[in-house]
C-alpha cells in the first residue's frame, strides 16, 4: 500500500447535475474506486450517493468543513451552479439545509486546498446553460468561455489554484482520478492546467489523436450515414479535430470512444459545446466544413483534402461507406486494381 501522506480529504457535492460524473468515477479501479482512493490515503468525507451519513449526520459534516474544523483537501462539485430564479439559486437547494448550492459552493470553496469542477457542467455551465438558459446556469469559475461563474474570476483555493476544470460530459474516469491523485500528492501546479483550467493530462491532446478512423480521415473517405465506417467529420458533425481530450488514446469502458462507436465527437470537453444546433450535421460553406482542425490553415486543408480524395485507395473508399469491413488490406491487392 502506497501511503504518500496522511488523510487527503475529499468532499463531493452534486449541484445541477445528472449524476453521470459520479457514475463515471465508479468505473475506476481493478478493485473499485473506493479501494483506489483508500490505497492513496484519500478519505471520502462525504458523497451524496455513496456515504452512510444522511440527513442530520451529513449536515454536521458540512458544518464542520464550513467552520474550518475539518481540513478539506479537495472540494469536488459535479453539475452546473444554478443562479436562478433571480439570483436566488433556489432552483437547486441542498435539501434539508434550506440553502442553495450556489450558497454552499461559495461557502465551502474557500475552505478547500483545491476546488475541482467535475464535468463540463461544473466547469463551464454545460447542457443546462444552453439556450434559453432557463435556470441561469454557470460553472464554478466560468460561464461558457468567460471567466467568472459562481466563484468569480479571482477565486483561488487555499493552495493558490483557480478551479481545476475536469471537463467532459461525462469525463473519462481516468481524468477525474488522475487529477485527484496528482492534487493529493502535491504534484499538480498551475502549469498543469490549460487556458480554460483543464488538466493538461487530457487537454494537451485532441480527441482526434489516435482515432480508429484515421485512415479514412487521411483520405477524406467519409461516412455519409450512420453506422458507416468512414470519417465522420465531413458530413456527420464530428468535432474530434477541434476538441481537446485523449479520448482515442485511452479506452472508454474497456475499448470504446465516441468516434469508435460511429456516433461522432460533440466536443463535450469544450466550453459552450451545448450551443451547437444540428449536432449530427457538418456545417459547410461552399462544400468545405466550417470547423476545420485546430491550428490548420484553411488553404492547406482544402488542398490536402482534394489531393487525398483523388488518391483514395479502393479499399478505403469502399469501407468508408460500409458498416463492416468490406475489403481487407490484402498485401499486393491494391497494385492490381
Amino acid at each position, binding site marked *: 500500500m502506497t501511503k504518500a501522506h496522511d488523510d487527503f480529504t475529499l468532499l463531493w457535492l452534486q449541484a445541477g*447535475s*445528472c*449524476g*453521470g460524473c*459520479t*457514475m*463515471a468515477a*465508479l*468505473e475506476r*479501479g*481493478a478493485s*473499485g*474506486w*473506493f*479501494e483506489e482512493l483508500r490505497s492513496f490515503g484519500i478519505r*471520502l468525507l462525504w458523497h*451524496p*450517493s*455513496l*456515504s*452512510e451519513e*444522511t*440527513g*442530520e449526520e451529513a*449536515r454536521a459534516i458540512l458544518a464542520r468543513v464550513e467552520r474550518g474544523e475539518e481540513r478539506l483537501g479537495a472540494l469536488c462539485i459535479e453539475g452546473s451552479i*444554478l443562479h436562478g*430564479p433571480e439570483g436566488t439559486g433556489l*432552483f*437547486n*437547494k*441542498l*435539501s*434539508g439545509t434550506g440553502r442553495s448550492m450556489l450558497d454552499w459552493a461559495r461557502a465551502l470553496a474557500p475552505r478547500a486546498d483545491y476546488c475541482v469542477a467535475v464535468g463540463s457542467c461544473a466547469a463551464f455551465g454545460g*447542457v*443546462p446553460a444552453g*439556450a434559453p438558459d*432557463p*435556470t441561469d446556469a454557470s460553472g464554478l469559475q466560468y460561464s461558457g468561455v468567460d471567466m467568472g461563474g459562481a466563484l468569480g474570476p479571482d477565486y483561488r483555493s487555499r493552495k493558490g489554484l483557480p478551479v481545476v476544470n475536469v471537463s467532459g*460530459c*461525462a469525463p473519462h474516469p481516468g481524468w477525474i482520478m488522475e487529477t485527484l491523485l496528482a492534487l493529493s500528492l502535491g504534484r499538480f501546479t498551475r502549469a498543469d492546467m490549460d487556458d480554460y483550467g483543464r488538466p493538461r493530462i487530457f487537454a494537451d491532446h485532441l480527441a482526434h489523436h489516435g482515432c480508429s478512423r484515421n485512415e479514412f480521415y487521411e483520405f477524406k473517405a467519409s461516412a455519409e*450515414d*450512420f*453506422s458507416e465506417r468512414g470519417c465522420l467529420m465531413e458530413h456527420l458533425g464530428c468535432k474530434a479535430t477541434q476538441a481537446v481530450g485523449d479520448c482515442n488514446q485511452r*479506452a*472508454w*469502458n*474497456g*475499448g470504446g470512444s*465516441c468516434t*469508435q*462507436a*460511429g*456516433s461522432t465527437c*460533440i466536443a463535450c470537453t469544450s466550453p459552450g459545446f451545448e450551443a451547437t*444546433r*444540428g*449536432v*449530427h450535421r457538418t456545417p459547410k460553406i461552399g462544400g468545405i466544413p466550417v470547423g476545420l482542425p485546430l491550428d490548420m490553415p484553411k488553404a492547406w486543408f482544402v488542398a490536402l483534402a482534394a489531393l487525398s480524395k483523388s488518391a483514395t485507395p479502393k479499399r478505403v473508399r469502399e469501407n468508408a461507406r460500409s*458498416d*463492416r469491413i468490406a475489403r481487407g488490406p490484402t498485401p499486393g491487392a491494391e497494385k492490381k486494381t
Partner: protein
Amino acid sequence: MSRIVVGPFNRVEGDLEVTLDVEKGVVREARVSASLYRGFEQLLLGRPAADVLAIAPRICGICSVSQSLAAAAVLRAAQPIAPAHNGLIATNIAHAAENIADHLTHFYVFFMPDFARAAYAGRAWHEATEARFKAVAGAALREALPARARLLETMGLIAGKWPHSLAFRPGGVTRALALGDEMRLLALIADFRSFLERALFSAPLDAVIGLSSAQELDGFAEGPGAAGDFATFIRIARDLGLEEMGAGPGLLLSAGAYLGSQGHRFPAGLLDCATALLREPPLSRVEEDVSHAYMRDTAADPARAETLPDMRREGAYSFAKAPRLEGRAVEVGALARQAVAGHPLIRDLLARRGASNVFARIVARVLEIALLTRAMEDWTRAVAPSEPYCVADAPLVDGPFVGFVEAARGTLGHWASFRDGQIERYQIIAPTTWNFSPRDAAGNPGPLERALEGLDVGEAGATNVAVQHIVRSFDPCMVCTAH
C-alpha cells in the same frame, strides 16, 4: 403533531427531501420534495429534432441510455421507418447492461449499507453485514464495483462510452458489431455471470430465474443460495419484517420493455394488486397535475403541456409534477415490470400482502439482474450476420408523438410535437416522477408519500432506519424526477 425534515436524503440518485408529520410516534403525512429543477424541456424547444438524441441522455447520468431510447422512440414514431433487427438487439444489450448496472448499484451501494448502520448493532447478522456491506468500506464493494465496470464494457463496444452516448438512433445503432465484437460481448457477459453466480447468488442463474414462490425463495436462501449476498438480504428482510413495510398504491404499470422484432421481452400492462386484474395500460390517459409543484398552471395532457417554474405557487413543495393514470397514482419499476410480465415469484410476493412492499421491490430488482443477464446472452446469439444495424432516418412528420421505454426504475415517457423538423413541444415523465410525485389537486398523495403513512417511527423519529428502507426501496432517481 411534530414536523421533521429529512435531508439531504442520500444514497439515492440526486437530492431528495422528505418531510414527515409525526403524531404519537406515527407518520400521519409525508411530503416528498424534488429540490432540483434544470429545465430540460425548455432546453429542447426550437432545436432541430435529432438534437434531442444529444440532450436527453444528459437528463440522467444513471439511466442515460433509457433517456436516449425514449427520445429515439418518439423520433421513430414521427417517421415511417422500421428499425434494423440487429439494431434492436444491440440496443437491448446496451439497455440491459445499463439497467443491470443500476440494479446492482442500488443493491450494493445504496440499499444494503443501511443494514450495516449502528442502529442494528446487536442483531445476530450485524457484524458480518457491516464487514461486507458498510458504505464505502464494505468488502462486497471490492467485488461489485469491478463487476459493474466490466459489465459496462459492453457499452464500449456498442455505444462508445457510458454514460451519455450518441450511438442510439431511431433506426438502430451507429456501429455494426463484427464477429470479434460478438465474441467479446459473450466473454464480458460470461464474466459478469460468474460474478453473479459466485457473489450475489452463490448459485446458477437458472436456480434464481426458476424460483416460483415465496416459499421456494426462503428455501433458496437457506439452501443452495445460502452463501450469496442475495440470501443475506432475504434473511435480514425476514428478521426485520421488510415485507410489512412500504405498501404502494396498488396499481403497477409497465409500458413494455426491450423491444424486439416480435414485440417486447417483458410486455406492457397495468396490474391491480387487490384484484390481480391485468389489462392494457391506458397510456393515452396519462395526465400531470401541478397543484403542489413549483410550476405554472398548464394543460394536464403531457402532449399539450409546458413546464415553466413558479416558485411562488401556494401549497407547492416539489419541482416534480404529479402524474396520474385515469386519476390514480401508480407505482413503476422492476416490481411492476415483472408483476405485469407474470413472473410467478413476484406474483406470489404480491399476493401474500395484497400490495407492493419493500421486500418485493428488492427481490424483483435482483431477480431482474438474473433475467437480464440471461437475456443479454440470448440477444448476442441472435445477431443476424451481415444484416444492417441501422436504418437511415426519413423526414419527420409534423404533429404530436409519444415514445415509451422501461428504464431501470420504471416507465419513462417522452411526449413531443415536431414542426418542420424542429421541436415545438417536449414533455418528459420519468419513473421517479410517478413514484415520488407530490399530492394532486384532490389531495391524493404520491406512491412514496402513501408508503410512509402509518409508519411507526417511535422515539427515533426521522432517524428511524425504516424510513431509509422504505424510501430507498423505490430506488429513486431524483435528477430525472423534475429534470
